[in-house]
């Protein structure tokens, strides 16, 4: 088998040049992105965070052509802004130039959520240990990303921080192993962990507050092509100073909660219903309220044993 070339094999200058010219082609789970940008913050963050990702070329099939660009005109000198483009069109309002890398991350999520309807797409984190996978659907602010990062730093394989991809034919979970987006206090929580962590640039004042991205582990990225059957769905909720509290969720309640967190349930129509029904049938479902890291890690350890 030929050895896969990763982004790490490129020099800083080569990364800058590829991003600036034809675009840098990366495999991101089952998708291939061509990323273009002449912004130095994009180059430095991509190099830092995506080092383990497989490097491809323009001779490979490419799913999404994305770019982060400054608009032309006087505006670029006064209070510079940037736009995200997917295949020439820009679906978002411009943001301040300092938020370039977070915007690229959100934009890449948007591409998948808008165009990958061969999967049931859930807004959730997904991790795996001992062949047992957990899906953590949750609204923003529930502590999902922090929990996801904690698990990923404690021996769990990261499939995704933001999106579960469930193949409509095989019902298997596919991995993305993209960076984990951390917000506000959770950045320090993760930095204070005993294990080594690599964070991207810390960006203040986004509408979500302060943001930084945690580099996915090399092992998670190397195993990105490995699919896994859904094993458990856990609905987490961080509750300060409370002891851990878990309950089994009624299947019907879990069904509705999964739908609520789906990007494309309505679009998929009957196929969507069938996929969620299969998922609920084949998994155990729990709600989880927690505050202590030790307690929550122990709960997941037991789940995977």
């Amino acid at each position: 088998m030929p050895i896969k070339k990763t982004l790490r094999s490129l020099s800083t200058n080569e990364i800058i040049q590829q991003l600036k010219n034809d675009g840098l082609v990366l495999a991101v789970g089952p998708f291939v992105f061509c990323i273009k940008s002449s912004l130095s913050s994009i180059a430095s963050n991509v190099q830092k965070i995506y080092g383990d990702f497989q490097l491809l070329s323009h001779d490979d099939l490419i799913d999404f052509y994305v770019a982060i660009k400054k608009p032309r005109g006087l505006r670029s000198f006064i209070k510079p802004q940037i736009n995200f483009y997917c295949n020439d069109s820009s679906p978002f309002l411009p943001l301040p130039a300092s938020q370039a890398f977070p915007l690229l991350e959100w934009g890449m999520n948007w591409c998948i959520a808008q165009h990958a309807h061969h999967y049931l797409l859930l807004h959730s984190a997904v991790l795996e240990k001992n062949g047992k996978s957990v899906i953590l659907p949750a609204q923003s602010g529930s502590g999902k990303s922090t929990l996801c990062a904690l698990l990923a730093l404690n021996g769990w394989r990261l499939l995704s921080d933001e999106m579960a991809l469930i193949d409509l034919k095989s019902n298997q979970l596919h991995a993305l192993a993209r960076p984990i987006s951390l917000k506000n206090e959770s950045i320090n929580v993760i930095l204070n962990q005993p294990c080594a962590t690599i964070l991207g640039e810390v960006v203040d004042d986004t509408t979500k507050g302060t943001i930084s991205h945690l580099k996915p582990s090399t092992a998670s990225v190397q195993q990105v092509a490995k699919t896994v059957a859904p094993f458990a769905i856990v609905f987490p909720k961080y509750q300060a100073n409370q002891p851990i509290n878990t309950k089994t969720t009624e299947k019907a309640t879990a069904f509705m909660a999964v739908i609520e967190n789906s990007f494309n349930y309505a679009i998929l129509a009957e196929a969507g219903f069938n996929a969620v029904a299969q998922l609920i049938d084949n998994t155990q479902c729990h709600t989880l309220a927690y505050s202590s890291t030790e307690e929550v890690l122990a709960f997941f350890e037991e789940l995977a044993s």
Partner: protein
Amino acid sequence: MHTSLLVKVLKSPKIIKSFNSKDWNLLLRQASSANMLARLAYTFNNHGLMNAVPDKILNHFNSDQVKVAHLHTQVNQEVQELNQLFNKLDIKAIYLKGTAYLLADLPLAQGRFFSDIDLLLNQSDIAKVEIALKCQGWKSQKTDDHDQAYYRDYMHEIPPMQHIIRGTVIDIHHNILPVCNNNIIDISLLSADALKLNVNTTHGNHSYVLAPAAMFLHSAIHLFHEGELEQGLRGLSDLDLLLSHFDESEANFSQQLIDLGTKINQQQSLFYAWRYLNRILNRELSNTAQAFVESYQPKITNLTTIDFIFTNLFTVHHSTTASWRFSLAAQLAYWRGHLLRMPLRLLIPHLLTKSWLQLSGLIKKDSVNINKVNALDPRFHQLDEDK
């Protein structure tokens, strides 16, 4: 400059058999930019070419087909409600364009996106329908006085109405070209043979689509009076599929088109339709159509300019096809479109008022941003879907 690969594929779908990855990447970008991915899938399917499509590309085709199917389900639900309303009011309504293709179950509806439900009503019925719609949660999209007056005095439609919860948009027309146009169409000639839809209802049935010749001519008139042709290639491909279908299902379809076109004084739109279908998409014309195109004398001084506009604009509007010719043609088409809609004595005051309102901040200048969403909004996927 790349030539448009999408146009080449539409002309001759079998060329995909020898495609390499680079070709597929380019075709995917161009087709999704032209909003024609699902249509391409439909074309490949019809030509038995699906095996030639790599799995990765097939996923994009399938995703787009899933979205189209979802749209069609939504439209069918809206139409059921609308039909009840027309029955209750005892008003005849004719569905136009995308909705009509869907309701008439025409092949071109497969894989076709559209954004609004278009309706043609008798002008005298519009006030009644507008009030009834408002009672059911639809509201006018244009709120400032200038826009309201512009639509109501000069246009062939009232300002679009949008459902406040579902977001669906209805365009209600009483004609198919602006009424301030020098060349007003006697709409009764076009709607005379409209076909009743098969809708089971106890209240009688008041919902129609245009008869084949009128449907084709309306599509052609619409396309060749349009000033902004981002979706021009899709429009031409619509005509292509309509023609294929009706040439088979109708007796002497070409002659029917010539007769109706002459009656409503729109031979020119028919001439353009056949001319560019033949030139851009290599469409073979019937003998009758060929004879018409050869003998027709267009009522314009300069066919070269019109050729320049349409041969350059019936392509993909994408960075991979950009050229100065294209930009110039787009400018010319923009002014041509405006002038066809409104005579100069009306157009200049209209544009001056618009720019004054923009400069004085009375209306939102960057209206293009209305459809954009904040990338950080966790609901971005839902918002975008509502467009």
